[in-house]
């Protein structure tokens, strides 16, 4: 969960979905800064970084992408989920976000994407 957003349901449901599908999920919880997310990704040797965000604090994802470039982590795809309008989806993809899952995305689509990017336990 990036920034001060407190809507945890989506992130927690996706974390459960991925765990049930055999992935190791390190759920960082609320109030994560871009630096905290990057540090955790390095420490945990993450295959994918998943970011949950609600509505319009997209600027924080841009900060996150800059930090990822600085740390030369660009081989770790960043995936966003949440209430993200189409215009922002375009901007996020242009900024290097690998994939955006808006509300209503099916569990199968999410699991299928992660299966192509990440090791299963």
């Amino acid at each position, binding site marked *: 969960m990036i*920034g*001060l*957003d*407190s*809507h*945890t*349901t989506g992130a*927690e*449901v996706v974390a*459960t*979905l991925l765990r049930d599908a055999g992935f190791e999920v390190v759920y960082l919880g*609320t*109030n994560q*800064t871009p630096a905290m997310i990057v540090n955790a990704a390095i420490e945990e040797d993450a295959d994918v970084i998943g970011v949950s965000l*609600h*509505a*319009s*604090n*997209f*600027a*924080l994802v*841009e*900060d996150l992408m800059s930090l990822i470039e600085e740390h030369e982590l660009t081989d770790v795809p960043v995936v966003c989920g949440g*209430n993200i*309008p*189409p*215009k*922002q989806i375009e901007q996020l993809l242009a900024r290097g976000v690998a994939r955006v899952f*808006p*509300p*209503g995305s*099916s*569990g*199968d689509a999410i699991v299928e994407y992660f299966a192509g990017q990440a090791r299963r336990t």
Partner: protein
Amino acid sequence: MKYATDYGYEIKPVYGPRDVEGLEYERDLGDPGRFPYTRGYHAQGYRSRMWTRRMTAGLGSSRDTNAVLKKYREMGQRGGICVIHDRVSSSCIDADHPLARRENGVLGWPGSSLLEFEELMDEIPLTGQSITVLGCCAPSTLRLAYVVALAEKRGIDLAEIHGSVTESPFGNVFGQTDVQPFDLDMKLFLDASEYIVRNGIRMRAGFVGQHFQESGGNNAQALAVELSMLKEICGRLVAERGLQFDDAMRVPYQLVSIGTRFFEEIAKVRALRRMWARMAKEHFGAKNEKSCQLLIAVHTSGRTMTYQQPLNNIARCAIETLAGAMVGCTALDNATLDNAYAEPSALAAQMSLNTQHIVAHETGVADVVDPLAGSYFVESLTNEVETAAYRILEEIDALGGLVAAIGKGHIQTMLKREANLKFQELNNKERLVVGVNHLVIPPEEEMFQIPVQAVEGSDSEAIAQRMADWKKTRNMAPIETSVRRLHADARKGDRYNLMPAIIDAVKAYATAGEILGVIRVARGLNYDPFKLIRCPFELSK
């Protein structure tokens, strides 16, 4: 396709007299205005008073939000305003905090000082309409202080103002996580509630069952949680603050969520009225009939507003509004067709407000009180959801009440399990949602692009910069004096009421971050919940 209520009870194809066997009219329903108030509190229903039709506002700067409130007035919103905080001020940090700079004015009003409230309320009357401000528990005392301070500045008798600016601490565990610790939230909430009662202020406190349900809880769970919130807080106001129960009951109103399961939503609210009336009388020994009448406001569910084909949400909103009107609510605020995108655009707000006006004036629904009473199905559902809720309530009671149940992780586990179940039901198409898992169209075939309100990073930065600049222009002497008093008071124990000191600090233009920060320091916590900034005041050790 599942034929079951959202709490898992089977729904039959047809209902008849045998489904309501044992129902005794006087005991279980009663005429509107008669105990146990299943049918509502007013014999004349909406004929004596129409529900307050309002929309939530809060986006961008305080002046931006003020302009939206004025726009809503033009759209016929006269009964009351409803404003929601942004995440920054909900957390009680200031706009110029390092973590706030990207988030000010996003998803709400940046209300972290009296200056912001003055701008928010510029040319908006404090009286003659209800003043409702929502968004986490932590800023409750501040919001109450803003109202007290502005009333004084405008020369208005505080007793003339009504509405709700405080919020119970339970949202913190229902998917609306608060950065302030639960025990601090609880203490401040009780302070505000006690102050309201002892000073005869006509402000209610939001007990937001909506958060629980919007985070995935089902109707029976929501009912149980709503009742246990009331039980816990009223119990504490009596036991810890020495209030009479009948006085404590001047505080709460319940904000319930109404989704698309039409009859179940109606049954839930009818059951809530009956269950509360019995709890008030049997558990709390209510002497005043008013204490048995739980004030209920409705929020039509934002969670049901789909991202796909947002125009479909107009239909959903209408159905939910109809249900909200039929249950006899005091106030109703709608979700909007763009709910899955952003805060409401003017177009979306107008559609939703007009949906309420259409239901109120064109359908005839408001002419008759509790029109579904006596329906075999609705009475059976009302009984069932009550039974299911009592079972959950007993579990919570057995754990020692809601705070204890939260401490043991019981409520969080229940909520998580239910949210996962709901997701699986959608995924497996046991529940159909048009445009999402049924009759899906590719995004490029969307016929209509709705306008979307957006707050840019630069808007948030401007709010931060204004706060930083303004802070330097303040007269610091009264601020220093007031925060030192606040710090001293905050060390006098949990039951020592901080409202007077907070009001002083707010009037001196101390900010949310400063006020909560000083209280935190007095409690041995870091000034800043994120440990990024230092306390700017010299405080006694």
